[in-house]
């Protein structure tokens, strides 16, 4: 873990008023990213991982929502920023890579226009010609051979893999400190996803940007991240170095999640997790995994986020690693 976190999220709560009642979507989420660190936030759909990312990008707002807690980027409070303040931060100090490159790029502008705009947003002094030159260079840098032709193309004329590459280039062109990547490449084929992750790794290393990877895919976590947060029903249940988490997962949910992944070694069918994700408007009191947990007992209660070994933290009253 790096000494100075560059992005911190502290005790984040998100409540949304709905027809069914108030949904407590995020229940005290805390996490941090060190400079240049690759961290994964992993969990199943509806666990709140994307909401966390959207809040960190200032993209979550609505009349029926209330957000509490603190999000700071290099000491600056992000939750207090207005839309104008955000414009100085977003795309410059913190940027985002979305899941579906087809939807994230604007279909009515050429790739060149969009890249040039992004470059000039980061550095308003750049002329269009300079920005265009930088864009072409950036594309060649990500191994796009026919960069000029790609710049003149519209996103729909290009393959999904190429668009993903362009999105990543765009996210990193202003050398941000933090990149939030929401399921990058998961809308694409596995071979393209593999290349996407490799490229992200190389580019963020080069720029020195930290990455918060939002994903449901444990395999992707293992190849990409240095450290992992496991999220379940709006809470972080486990945090560990990646290798450690896969070697010796401690939280029963993490263990169950790993057992549910089909293995390439062909050990037979994976194990399902019994029960269902709890209802956010009426969640179980205390540990939210308790109703589905094979180790649940009366003593469970509301466990703290304990640290049974350095750097490995788990929200469970029992230690199941042994």
């Amino acid at each position, binding site marked *: 873990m790096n000494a100075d976190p560059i992005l911190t999220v502290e005790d984040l709560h998100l409540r949304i008023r709905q027809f069914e009642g108030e949904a407590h979507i995020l229940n005290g989420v805390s996490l941090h990213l060190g400079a240049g660190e690759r961290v994964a936030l992993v969990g199943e759909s509806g666990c709140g991982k994307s909401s966390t990312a959207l809040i960190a990008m200032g993209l979550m707002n609505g009349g029926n929502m209330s957000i509490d807690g603190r999000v700071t980027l290099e000491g600056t409070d992000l939750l207090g920023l207005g839309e104008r303040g955000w414009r100085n931060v977003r795309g410059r100090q913190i940027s985002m890579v979305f899941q579906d490159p087809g939807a994230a790029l604007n279909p009515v502008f050429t790739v060149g226009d969009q890249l040039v705009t992004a470059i000039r947003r980061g550095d308003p002094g750049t002329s269009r010609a300079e920005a265009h030159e930088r864009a072409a260079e950036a594309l060649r840098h990500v191994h796009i051979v026919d960069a000029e032709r790609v710049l003149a193309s519209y996103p729909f004329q290009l393959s999904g893999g190429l668009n993903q590459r362009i999105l990543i280039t765009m996210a990193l062109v202003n050398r941000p400190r933090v990149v939030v990547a929401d399921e990058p490449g998961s809308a694409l084929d596995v071979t393209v996803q593999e290349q996407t992750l490799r490229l992200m790794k190389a580019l963020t290393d080069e720029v020195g940007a930290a990455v918060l990877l939002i994903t*449901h895919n444990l*395999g992707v976590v293992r190849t990409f991240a240095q450290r992992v947060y496991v999220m379940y029903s709006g809470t972080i249940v486990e945090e560990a170095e990646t290798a450690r988490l896969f070697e010796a997962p401690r939280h029963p949910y993490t263990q169950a999640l790993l057992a549910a*992944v089909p*293995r*390439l070694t062909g050990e037979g069918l994976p194990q399902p997790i019994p029960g269902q994700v709890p209802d956010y408007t009426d969640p179980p009191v205390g540990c939210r995994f308790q109703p589905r947990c094979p180790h649940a007992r009366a003593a469970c209660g509301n466990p703290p986020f304990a640290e049974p070994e350095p750097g490995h933290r788990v929200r469970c009253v029992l230690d199941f690693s042994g």
Partner: protein
Amino acid sequence: MTSVAESLVPPAEDPVLIRIEDLRRDFTVGSRTVSALAGVSLDIRRGQTVAVVGESGSGKTTLGNQILGIDRPTSGRILFEGREITATRDTDMRRRIQVVQQSPYTTLNPKRNLRQILELPIAIHSDRSRRQRRDRVAELLEIVGVSADFMERYPYTLSGGQRQRVALARALAPEPDVIVLDEPTSSLDVSVQARILQLLVELQAQYQLTYLFITHDLSVVRNIADEVVVLYRGYVVERGATAELFSNPLHRYNAMLLSSIPVVSEPEEALKPSWEWDGSVVGVEPSVGAACPFLPRCPHAVALCEQGVPPLVAETPTHQHACRNPRSSESAHRE
């Protein structure tokens, strides 16, 4: 489970259920003709699970649509128990091949409740009375593990996993022989996926079902299929018994696919073939004409690869590939 050794050299009790002969499906895009299927031949035996894997544009969904009879091939034949069903099929033939689709959000009509959804196939394929149909709906729901009390509910009140169960019940309703499973779990969370996969295997045993499992997820395939067919741009590039195809990938494309699977453990990592990822891409891949379809992406191409589309050749009785410079020959050279 039946091994593919028997399937390629079939014993009498395990006959070919569906035979696909040189199936071709061309689409016209502007002034160009694109072959979604460029001459695919395949046998599917009763009671087996045959996985068709490939990426987008491989033609795997088109192949499923041909078998389901909702699209017609440009040329080639489809035989069911020896009977040709390429162009027309009667109601009973339609009954015998059903489908489970990918998206739990669009596979069920949001405006129809579960009873209406499940009664439709029952009404078409049997002469049950209204009351009997209702009983059958309840029975089907129980079979797939959904409470019969949900009968009057609408899909939006169900979870993704429950919806896929209902879709499975709909496929079972006409008592089919074959179910085409078109990415049935790829939109689900792994914990839910695991339950659906278990259910599929149980139902297969119980009702002697034959599955054509269309997917891009090789980890799932490894654990559920008897035989795997790898498609690339409308061509079968490799085909074989599951264990063999995974432990000894021969075609370069198959090796690339396997090497790009994100896995969660060291033993799995060790199984993945190595692949030299060359990062460069061009905006549009040039068309290759009569050559190996994988040529533009293949770092192992040799001169021979440009001379016509390579035919499928048998490496073993249960393993075929269409590569002019297969991986085994190279690793053999190295050793």
